[in-house]
């Protein structure tokens, strides 16, 4: 047993652990997701996060030790966001035709999400720094952190809310759209990218290429709108 503990202590202190755990657990979660016909509740981000989180907490491994390896996956988020221009470019004439409507929908929808989050937090009497960390939750985690910092929130908390928002959207959007009889893949994808940023977009890409393209554009648009407008309100 002590041998195992020593081995664990060694492994968990090298970047190999975080990288291996991230890839291995995700590959497994993705396989289960495929087996279940990509059911929203089997979302691979959610279950990978839960599985790795439980292992870290159970073994007392600190998050930075995990991140030392996981950062090699994390850095690819940057070029992935740049790459979102590709599906958009492929649909450029269609996007240009819809431009005005897309801008209005992004602005109104993004405002509805942020205002309702802040309003409810105020109603519940949550601490001011928590309230300010909730405001940018519709944009992808790294961006939400930067905006939260500028408007007096807690960056790490903003990242947590952004991740939870993304997961809630990815899990439930299908049922909500079905209930509202929204059938257009473009509209469904655009709404997912607006309200649930990259995690929503990742789900949209898996469901339909049109949904993915519009989700990618929506998340970019939401980042620009949030970064420009949110500091004006706080």
């Amino acid at each position, binding site marked *: 047993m002590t041998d195992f503990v020593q081995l664990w202590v060694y492994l968990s202190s090298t970047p190999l652990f975080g990288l291996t755990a991230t890839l291995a657990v995700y590959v497994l979660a993705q396989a289960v997701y495929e087996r279940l016909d990509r059911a929203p509740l089997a979302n691979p981000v959610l279950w990978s996060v839960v599985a790795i989180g439980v292992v870290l907490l159970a073994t007392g491994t600190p998050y930075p030790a*995990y991140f030392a390896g996981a950062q090699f996956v994390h850095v690819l988020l940057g070029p992935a966001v740049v790459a979102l221009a590709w599906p958009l*470019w492929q649909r450029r004439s269609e996007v240009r035709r819809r431009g005005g409507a897309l801008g209005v929908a992004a602005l109104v929808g993004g405002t509805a999400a*942020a205002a309702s989050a802040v309003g*409810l937090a105020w109603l519940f009497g949550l601490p001011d720094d928590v309230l300010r960390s909730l405001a940018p939750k519709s944009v992808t985690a790294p961006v939400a952190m930067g905006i939260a910092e500028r408007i007096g929130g807690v960056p790490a*908390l903003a990242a947590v809310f952004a991740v939870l928002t993304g997961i809630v959207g990815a899990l439930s959007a299908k049922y909500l759209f079905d209930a509202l009889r929204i059938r*257009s893949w473009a509209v469904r994808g655009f709404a997912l990218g607006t309200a649930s940023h990259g995690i929503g977009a*990742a789900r949209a*890409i898996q469901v339909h290429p049109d949904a993915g393209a519009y989700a990618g554009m929506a998340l970019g648009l939401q980042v620009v709108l949030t970064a420009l407008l949110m500091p004006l309100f706080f």
Partner: protein
Amino acid sequence: MSALRGLALLLLLQAAGEGLTHALSLPFPGPVVGMVLLLVALQWPPVREPVAAAAQLLLDHLSLLFVPVGVGVITHLGIVARHGLQLAVIVVVSTWLGLAVTALVLRGLQRDDDAP
């Protein structure tokens, strides 16, 4: 090889985006500026094939890239637990409202092409 050339190009554009945001103190993150730069660069045909290959690779596995940040939730379990129910209501209600309002506004503005 094509995907690798594409990845190098994406990283270069991200770096250019980071440079621009710093130089002009723009409030946007570098990768989003890089995304706009790529839209411009795609006018030039030789970049299209490598970018398509790299984009396919990265975007097919976009979910994976959110796992490291997601696991970070464990660092704030305390506050999440303290205001658990209220935070759950806030996150769920505001996300649904955001999804529904965006979709309904977009559909309302272009009723004609709400085809699957």
